[in-house]
């Protein structure tokens, strides 16, 4: 099935290259051209219902938009580190012209491979180092987490909010801090209890961490890991929770307050278009609620009307730029002022965040 199709496109391509005009006109010629090969490297399985699932929806959006003008390939469950380099190199060697590497730990491998394939365009998610053929893109998840913090701070009865953290990188610390700051704005004594599981994806352990937190008096579970397991535990134990990367309401119809939903599709479509147009340029994209890189899923029944309004006000404030989630005064967990009154943290400071705000216990 695939082979004759390949041969036909190959022949058409050669014919066009030889300068022969095809009788069927430009449209036929365009569709018969070699498709743009696009590779995706995933850190988890596409069926994790979290992070990788979200990226794969983005890949599908590209396929839907461009049809047979593109040919996408993905490799899932690629461990961060040396393995990643091998996979990325293989994708580049196989003729993929655009490669999305979708985890923080792929940063160095991506840059390394990019050096040896100057004609391939690389897009690295959540990194901070670019090169002539490497762009980085990231989502301002902390914006969503500020809204989540507001909901959690307003709804917690015990004043203890659980946070299941994956691996200790600034991105995750940023999420913890955003949650804590905004929870404490409505509940000044709120405490964000953090449990690190040192993995992006281990449903069993994520669930166990949720149990540990709930047993210690936490009544709202938030997470920075990729499966719906913590939310499921929250539902079982009758506490509240927040979905991650996808709307996870099916797993916790009563518990889910909202979910931070990743939307990579539009960006993937835009970058693919740029390659097709020959207009791809190195860029450093860090978009958030405003540009639709993330959205919040509809509020659950546990969120009362008045709270929906105040949460929406924060969301809209972030979208119109009147609210910056990291506006001073912000104290660190030792009580020292880290951000002066009225000052805002710069992107660089946020991307290197390695300290906890007041109210975080980790």
């Amino acid at each position, binding site marked *: 099935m695939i082979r004759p199709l390949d041969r036909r496109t190959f022949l058409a391509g050669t014919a066009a290259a030889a300068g022969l005009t095809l009788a069927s006109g430009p449209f036929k010629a365009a569709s018969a051209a070699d498709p743009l090969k696009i590779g995706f490297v995933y850190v*988890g*399985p*596409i*069926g*994790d*219902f979290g992070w990788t*699932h979200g990226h794969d929806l983005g890949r599908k959006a590209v396929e839907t938009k461009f049809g047979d003008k593109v040919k996408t390939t993905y490799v899932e*469950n690629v461990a961060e580190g040396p393995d990643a380099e091998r996979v990325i190199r293989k994708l580049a060697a196989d003729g993929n012209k655009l490669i999305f590497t979708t985890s923080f730990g792929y940063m160095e491998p991506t840059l390394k491979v990019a050096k040896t394939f100057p004609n391939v365009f690389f897009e690295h998610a959540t990194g901070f180092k670019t090169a002539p053929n490497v762009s980085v893109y990231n989502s301002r998840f902390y914006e969503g987490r500020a809204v989540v913090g507001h909901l959690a701070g307003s709804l917690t009865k015990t004043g203890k909010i*659980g946070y299941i953290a994956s691996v*200790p990188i600034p991105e995750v610390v940023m999420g913890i801090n955003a949650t804590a700051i905004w929870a404490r704005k409505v509940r000044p004594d709120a405490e964000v*209890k*953090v*449990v*690190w*599981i*040192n*993995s992006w*994806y*281990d*449903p*069993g*352990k994520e*669930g*166990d*961490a949720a*149990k*540990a*937190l709930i*047993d*210690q008096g*936490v009544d709202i579970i938030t997470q920075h890991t990729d*499966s*719906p*397991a913590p939310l*499921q535990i929250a539902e*079982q134990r009758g506490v509240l929770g927040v979905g991650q990367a*996808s709307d996870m309401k*099916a*797993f916790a119809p009563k518990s889910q307050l909202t979910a931070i939903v990743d939307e990579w599709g539009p960006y993937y479509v835009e970058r693919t278009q740029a390659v097709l147009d020959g207009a791809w340029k190195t860029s450093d994209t860090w978009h958030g609620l405003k540009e639709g890189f993330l959205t919040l899923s509809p509020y659950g029944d546990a969120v009362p009307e008045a709270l929906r309004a105040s949460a929406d006000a924060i969301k809209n404030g972030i979208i119109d730029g009147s609210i910056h989630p990291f506006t001073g005064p912000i104290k660190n967990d030792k009580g020292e002022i880290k951000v002066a009154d009225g000052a805002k943290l710069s992107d660089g400071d946020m991307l290197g965040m390695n300290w906890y705000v007041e109210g975080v*216990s*980790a």
Partner: protein
Amino acid sequence: MTAEMILPMVLTVIAAATPLLLAAIGELVTEKAGVLNLGVEGMMLAGAVIAFATTVGTGSATLGIFAAMVAGIVMSLAFGVLTLTLMANQVATGLALTIFGIGLSSLIGSSYIGTPVTKLATLAIPGVSDIPVLGPLLFGHDVLVYASVALTVAVAWFLKSTRKGLILRAVGESDLSAHSIGYDVIRVRYFAVMFGGLCSGLAGAYLSLSYTPMWVEGMTAGRGWIALALVAFASWRPWRVLGGAYIFGGVTILQLYLQGAGGIGVPAQVMNMLPYLATIIVLTVISAGPWRGRLDAPACLGKPFRPAS
């Protein structure tokens, strides 16, 4: 840490230990017969997805559990045919079985992602389950938790006190001798391998029906490999497998609770290292001093059986 926190913590430990115990006790029998099946992770995943799909399809968790056992047995039979009948390399075939299981389970499971299922019911005994502390501790679990302990007891008894158990051990220690006095080595090994598959299937069913009642790809997250390590850790003894499963589960859970309790001043990475540290310490202790030399792995472990005649 307070007293009322201990009970839920113990319950969490039991839940974490159960899939390890189920998979490890099956692998113990397989290895006692001299066969090394590294496909535990793959068989667990197959069991998990089949249990989930069957439960969603039929509405019956009981059928789901049986389907998982059948799935485990079918997977292990494939392994048996390749390694016992066709004498393929056991290590390579076992690894292939894991890779196959990962792929097959995500294929079967793709339409079940995002579907929730009701958690396996606990077998509550009216009156008895309500006794404070002891009630939930001893009588508040689902059928697979009891099955894991019952299987361990049964395997310990079978291997130690029955004639068939003796034959199975003989096959694992010296296949040629067992063969020369008239025992069908291949047949015994087939049964041992199938029992291992059945147990791995159960372990998978526990993951997708009780531990985290859902299907997501790769949800075993390496527990099959921990179960394999557990067999060596337990130096091929059923009761030590039981103890080991609870130590592994316990240390993992304990560190999550300690983190949540806060203020112990130990980095999370060190805490996460604890299960592995515990393994090393126990292995060091049992392989030194008076226990030295009693690690006894079955002598024929991993070797294909080639009768001289």
